[in-house]
């Protein structure tokens, strides 16, 4: 009899005794993310660690996410302290060429107008019954900027971080599917054919002074955006000053890769069956799509409004690139532009609003933080 009790005891110490249907569903979701990343090449650098982490943390009774356990430490020290999203911004800054935006600073306004979806989804979320902090975390998906979304969610609604991060990265990967119909719907063929003058060359000095000017303007006006913008601009200064090659390479490669691994694992760990299997994630995915669509529309419509006042017309297709998602949104502008006129080259013009969108989303997040935290 004692042998039977021991066997029973051993059995209850295994995960098999604690499996629920929720765990199995989450394994399938984790595997689906890994499939998207590996087979379909959707944001593989993030979806592989996120997918595997979802799979891993839904292993019943595994000591991973409890207080002081491994993935909990990644989450606590990496995300709750907001270190990782900021370090990712350092890497993004080191990789980003702000030249097209400096050559045509008007495009910064398109980066602002493409934040429209953030605020539309913010209201939508309130109507769906989310509280105001949760609504801000959902709305920011419309900025199509993963690290900013995680940064804001970790500060305002940490319990929703996994869901909003996955929604943001999923939609970023689906930019080439979501944006073109909206772009075609809101522009005429004639507008899509507009050719823009080649951008002027930007000097090394301009590129080097830009991070300093941008830091002064943004951090003085929206101090809450300083952690993100500050690190974005340090990274960019590494790139443009040409004297810290070692730091630049580290920021672009090793550091960015390390924090991406930790970020992916920590984000995936928030998607446990008991949290994820409710109607909420469906609403978040729906509202994220609304945010994305309106942000695309905001950029396009504002570009058309600007054309009413500009002597040299801009192609409204570059407006849709204001939704961060660098450089995919700019590539979509180029592709749709070339469908209307195969000799039209919009890529470099679209890179301006594209990188402006990164700044715009960080400012929008900074405003939410200063008003809600």
């Amino acid at each position, binding site marked *: 009899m004692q042998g039977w009790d021991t066997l029973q005891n051993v059995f209850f110490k295994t995960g098999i005794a604690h499996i629920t249907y929720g765990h199995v569903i989450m394994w399938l979701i984790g595997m689906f993310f890994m499939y998207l990343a590996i087979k379909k090449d959707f944001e593989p650098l993030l979806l592989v660690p996120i997918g595997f982490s979802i799979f891993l943390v839904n292993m019943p009774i595994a000591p991973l996410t409890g207080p002081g356990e491994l993935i909990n430490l990644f989450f606590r020290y990496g995300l709750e302290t907001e270190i990782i999203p900021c370090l990712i911004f350092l890497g993004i800054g080191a990789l980003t060429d702000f030249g097209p935006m400096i050559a045509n600073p008007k495009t910064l306004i398109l980066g602002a107008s493409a934040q429209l979806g953030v605020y539309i989804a913010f209201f939508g979320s309130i109507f769906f019954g989310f509280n105001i902090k949760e609504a801000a975390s959902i709305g920011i998906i419309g900025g199509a900027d993963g690290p900013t979304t995680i940064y804001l969610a970790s500060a305002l609604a940490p319990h929703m971080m996994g869901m909003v991060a996955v929604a943001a990265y999923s939609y970023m990967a689906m930019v080439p599917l979501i944006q073109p119909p909206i772009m075609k719907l809101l522009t005429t063929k004639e507008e899509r054919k507009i050719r823009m003058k080649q951008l002027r060359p930007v000097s090394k*000095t301009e590129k080097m002074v830009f991070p300093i000017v941008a830091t002064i303007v943004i951090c003085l006006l929206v101090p809450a955006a300083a952690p993100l913008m500050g690190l974005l601009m340090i990274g960019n200064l590494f790139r443009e000053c040409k004297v810290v090659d070692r730091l630049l390479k580290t920021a672009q490669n090793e550091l960015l890769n390390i924090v991406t691994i930790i970020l992916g694992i920590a984000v995936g760990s928030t998607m446990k069956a008991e949290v994820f299997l409710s109607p909420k994630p469906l609403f978040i995915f729906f509202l994220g799509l609304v945010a994305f669509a309106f942000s695309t529309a905001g950029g396009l419509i504002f570009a058309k409004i600007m054309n009413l006042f500009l002597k040299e017309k801009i192609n409204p297709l570059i407006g849709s690139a204001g939704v961060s998602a660098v450089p995919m949104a700019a590539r979509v502008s180029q592709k749709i532009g070339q469908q209307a006129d195969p000799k039209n080259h919009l890529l470099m013009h679209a890179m301006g609003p594209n990188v402006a969108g990164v700044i715009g989303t960080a400012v929008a997040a900074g405003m939410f933080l200063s008003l809600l935290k």
Partner: protein
Amino acid sequence: MVIEALEVAIPGFIVVFLVLFLLSLSVKCMSFVTRKIEKKGGK
């Protein structure tokens, strides 16, 4: 709740526009000054 949301969204969107508008003006000024300096340096 809706009023509270309006109090966040309206100033938020205005500030985003304002910051990026001021940044575009600053970039224009920066380009003007650096190009002037570079021209002078070249002479």
